[in-house]
């Protein structure tokens, strides 16, 4: 049996994240940085929801490919799409956004990549799905939904922008 999230589950998870962010930052200045790929789409949904709530928040996109710790072990290097950070990172309060939080290795890479742009005063982490099984000491600040998974499960996230539909499927023991 596999677990699923539907389009409306995903929408609910995003609004959950938006509410948490608003609750703690209503009168603060911050920026969103989405991690490619799909983290950027989650960030864009948050940004647009915040805009509807009357908050204009700058958003950037981060490509962490060059900062991964497993490049030497990969048969093919990930395709580089590039980052787009048009605001000053120095002194910024940044909320990093990704689709799935798993081992924490992407977050490590993202923080390294960010600090090559400047020195933020604060970096927080927002994830659509926390599936557990951390290998590095990271904890999310804002979570859309917690999913119980096994270490070997594969979380297949599809989002409208990159995949043409919104769905999440937990595939058990994917080899």
């Amino acid at each position, binding site marked *: 049996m596999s677990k699923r999230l539907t389009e409306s589950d995903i929408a609910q998870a995003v609004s959950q994240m938006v509410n948490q962010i608003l609750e703690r930052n209503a009168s603060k200045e911050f920026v969103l940085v989405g991690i490619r790929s799909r983290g950027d789409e989650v960030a864009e949904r948050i940004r647009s929801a915040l805009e509807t709530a009357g908050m204009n928040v700058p958003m950037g996109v981060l490509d962490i490919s*060059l900062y991964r710790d497993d*490049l030497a072990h990969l048969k093919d290097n990930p395709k580089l799409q590039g980052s787009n950070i048009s605001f000053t990172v120095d002194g910024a309060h940044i909320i990093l956004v990704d689709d799935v939080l798993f081992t924490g290795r992407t977050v490590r890479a993202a923080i390294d990549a960010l600090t090559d742009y400047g020195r933020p005063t604060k970096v927080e982490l927002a994830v659509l799905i926390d599936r557990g099984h951390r290998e590095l000491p990271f904890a999310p600040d804002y979570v859309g939904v917690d999913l119980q998974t096994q270490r070997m499960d594969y979380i297949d996230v599809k989002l409208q922008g990159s995949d043409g539909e919104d769905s999440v499927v937990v595939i058990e023991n994917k080899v």
Partner: protein
Amino acid sequence: MAVISLLVLVVGPVYTPLSSSSPPMTRKDLLDIESLSREEIELLLDQAGPFKDLFTRSVKKVPALKGKSVLTLFYEPSTRTLSSFEVAAKRLSADVTNFDVPHSSVVKGETIKDTIDTLQSMRTDYIIVRNKMPGLPQMIARETKACVINAGDGAHAHPTQALLDGFTLREVFPELMGKKILIVGDILHSRVARSTSTLMRKLGVEVAWLGPGSLVPKHGPKDIKRFTNYDEALRWAPDCVYLLRVQMERQAVQYFPSLREYTKLYGVTDERFKQLEAQGTYIMHPGPVNRGVELCDAVMEYNRCLINQQVENGIATRMAALYWLKPNQQK
């Protein structure tokens, strides 16, 4: 084709390996342009863009090749290509060693086979080689586990030059299909002309050659136009004129009577420059330029002169090439 590869780029999830149906997107060596598919060339050019974006950050370095070693092995003098590779490798956090050939064992009589064995023992991850002997990079690539990049072998190939030229032209013409490039000079002895012509044709650019009759090869692809007369070539209305360097240091054998005559017939003189400027033609040159020979001073101030962009793009393109190559795992 372009649309398909673009889609693949946008859609491709970061952590998912390529499916077995997609073309091999990784190679061990970069030896020439002939063996690259159009998709591979476009992948390299697409990835050079994000690398170039890094140059405006205060930290220009990324950790992609941290702990990897790059060895440069230049048997021919070169400042630009060598330092371009060196900067590219260092911006990827690799450790670079220059195998200083004039002072190395080569002058002490070590054979190339022995040099290769030495390189193999050094367990370097990437070897960047330039030699006057065509095919030497291929030989080193066969004999070592390291990734080998050909930085120019005789009159054969100079693939990273061609890639940077393609990237530079694509910056001014995002759609290259149907654009025209005129390559001027000693085509016959030029690895740049060979590699750049091949790459441009693979990207759908029309290529023409202009030079002294004896130095414009009659053999080779039929779709390349051959000109010996400048005015005729300009009537073909090229979008870009690519000037080859007159190799002063190789003038021991004279292929044309005098430099003055070369300039008169094939140089961008003040008069020809006015014409090119009026036609809005872009100008490229692999460098270093001989002012007063291939081109007049005014060209260097021209806003459609792409020579300085070529230098900057050379670093980005070489970073893309280093990032793309992967050592042979089964060997």
